[in-house]
């Protein structure tokens, strides 16, 4: 939920990166973190297991600049991907302003993508949101790997509406900022309509 503070002149929004386990959500945040000036970001908090799997969420605050004299701050979250962390995923979607679905382009992860996308729709619904109405972006990640599904097939299978689609290689940063810009724009545009 957007929070507008006239005293500190800030607009705060919440963006959640969603997707199956190991699709590259944390890698997206890590890349944004590594390539952002220290003054524009806070700490990257990772609540991870000892084997580096996201346990609850990753979190990073990011300042993108000012609009009409107000600082725009985006709070970026990722969810844990494994199926059994569903309760955590539901909690993290509370108050969300925009969602990025990170799909893993590898053939053998197709079922996991479909399952996770379905799970996103369900969990949004249980929080009172509709995937077809909120600011939403689809990222097709891991395009560098040899065994990827062709983009048109992924789009047919995973695109839910008119959402922007971005190809990415989060590990090297390709498409990461395009995705972020895309969702940030949609969130601000939605805010204007409210």
């Amino acid at each position: 939920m957007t929070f507008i503070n006239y005293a500190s002149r800030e607009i705060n929004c919440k963006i959640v990166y969603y997707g199956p386990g190991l699709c590259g959500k944390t890698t997206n945040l890590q890349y944004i973190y590594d390539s952002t000036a220290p003054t524009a970001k806070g700490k990257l908090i990772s609540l991870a297991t000892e084997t580096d799997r996201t346990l609850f969420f990753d979190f990073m605050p990011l300042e993108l600049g000012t609009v009409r004299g107000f600082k725009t701050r985006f709070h970026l979250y990722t969810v844990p991907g494994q199926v059994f962390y569903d309760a955590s995923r539901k909690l993290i979607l509370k108050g969300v302003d925009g969602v990025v679905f990170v799909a893993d382009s590898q053939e053998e992860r197709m079922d996991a993508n479909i399952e996770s996308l379905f799970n996103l729709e369900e969990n949004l619904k249980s929080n009172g949101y509709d995937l077809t109405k909120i600011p939403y972006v689809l990222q097709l990640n891991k395009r560098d790997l040899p065994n990827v599904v062709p983009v048109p097939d992924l789009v047919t299978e995973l695109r839910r509406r008119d959402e922007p689609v971005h190809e990415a290689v989060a590990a090297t940063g390709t498409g990461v900022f395009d995705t972020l810009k895309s969702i940030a724009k949609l969130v601000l545009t939605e805010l204007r309509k409210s």
Partner: protein
Amino acid sequence: MTDTPIIMREQQYGRIIAVLSKLRLDSFARVVFLVDKNGQEIAVQGEVGGLDTTSLASLAAGNVAATGGMAKLIGEKEFPTLSHEGERESIHICIIGRTLLVVVFDDRSSLGLVKLRVKQASRELATIFEEITRESEQTAQDNPLLAGITDDDIDSLFSS
């Protein structure tokens, strides 16, 4: 179709700061802050130097969300307060509507005293926040700041 934005005016912010400031003095706390349930910091008072309040705010909200989830599983609505006591530093969190009041204190204070003072402050904060919520719903409709955002404004955020 996301939630209506919360819009906090300067005057309301000033009243919140006043309550937090008094609470901090009365409870001998190190830091007192108010956080939105989604983890966004609303206001802080106290010895903040070096403390990463943005991260703390997000983790406090995560903490409350997780224990709230546990509460539902065992048939409770939520756990209205949470306390974590360390060797020297401790944290007390109290849910007030859609916000969380977080008090960080050390051995200059005690959990009992903090709880007592928090109870008093939370009534005042609840009143202020009811007003903010009520007004937000009205002003989000035709807010000059929001309505005035242009495509160019949005594009210029990403020009660098």
